[in-house]
């Protein structure tokens, strides 16, 4: 059992938001692969995640990890109706930019740029922050994601009205709410259990 956190003297921490691939270093020891039981494998959901230090650290509590992962997948990958994947990823990127999670923002900025083909707008969101002027629809999604990410939450009827005016229906608005809310879960784990690293 760990009594001391893991330090990485001299590691290269990214100091700006980026779409580049980053590494992530855990401050507590991930489970060693040989210690994984069936319950841990079930928590990892995808066996490939055993290669990730982040998921192997979270695997210390496999039941909540498994439920977290299944919640995540449905919010982002279930595209039967609702908000296009690109805009769910936009909400995730906006929440991550606002909370300051450079690692999460890098992953979901890549997804948002890939699915929307609007690389320049995503880069402006990363560079300028959540006040960047993208277009009416994206501005409404970013503003809603920011209001949901504030503590206490400031999301209100005006945000719903702005999303409606931008053409979103109730299911699509619910998708924005879930995508932004989920990144308030993910950002906090990523930011506080370890540190991103360049390359």
């Amino acid at each position, binding site marked *: 059992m760990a009594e001391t956190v893991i330090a990485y003297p001299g590691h290269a921490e990214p100091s700006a938001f980026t779409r580049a691939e980053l590494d992530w270093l855990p401050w*507590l020891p991930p489970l060693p692969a040989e210690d994984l039981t069936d319950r841990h494998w079930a928590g990892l959901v995808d066996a490939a995640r055993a290669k990730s230090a982040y998921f192997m650290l979270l695997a*210390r509590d496999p039941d909540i990890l498994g439920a977290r992962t299944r919640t995540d997948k*449905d919010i982002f990958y279930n595209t039967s109706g609702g908000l296009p994947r690109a805009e769910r990823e936009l909400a995730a990127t906006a929440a991550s930019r606002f909370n*300051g999670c450079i690692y999460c923002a890098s992953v979901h900025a890549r997804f948002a740029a890939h699915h929307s083909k609007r690389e320049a707008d995503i880069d402006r969101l990363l560079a300028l922050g959540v006040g960047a002027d993208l277009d009416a629809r994206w501005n409404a999604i970013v503003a809603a994601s920011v209001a*949901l990410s504030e503590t*206490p*939450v400031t999301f209100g*009827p005006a945000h719903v009205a702005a999303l409606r005016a931008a053409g979103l229906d109730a299911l699509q608005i619910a998708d924005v709410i879930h995508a932004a*809310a989920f990144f308030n879960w993910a950002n906090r784990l990523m930011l*506080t259990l370890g540190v991103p690293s360049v390359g």
Partner: protein
Amino acid sequence: MTASVTDAPDVIDLLAGVSPGSPLDAIRAERPQARQNAQASFLALFQPADEGDATRAERYAVATFVAGLHRQPDLVAFYAKGLADAGQERLIAAEIARAAAHGPYGHYPAGPLSAEDQPGPAFLVSEASLPALGPRLSAAFAHAHLLVFHPRDAAPGALQNLLDAGWSATGIVTLSQLVSFLAFQIRVVAGLRTLAATLAGGA
């Protein structure tokens, strides 16, 4: 999984006021895995098959504190039902009042983002509450405040404080998941409540 997975009422539906057959019920039904697993997450954290390295009492105490930091009275009342006694509830209410802040704030790694640094308070429980809360819960409250309001200020020293207070690495993972899950649950509840109110308005 325990039998309660199917027996317990859905907490997000309960707290957001989603009733069977309502427009919000139909919307949630479009994302059945998210709905089921948000509930499974709640059960894994608050009705764990095995308490592991965080007791049930500790989980409800931290949840009550976290709901209070979000200024969500209904969620405070919901999680306070799991507390040991009314004395502990009063103690936590006093700490919530001392801990009030507006997030997210905090520092970035030195560089171009330093211009966006926003200083804000760190939190320690009061000297008066410390003996009753004990070292583990006091450290957990300090850490929960960091996660709720200024997670980008996180540093290895924050986790070391938990280890020094008697938390194991696995207990810290459970605690971190619990606070972070609540950040999600509270936002889904607040967001769906707002959306439901606009639907009831005739949209």
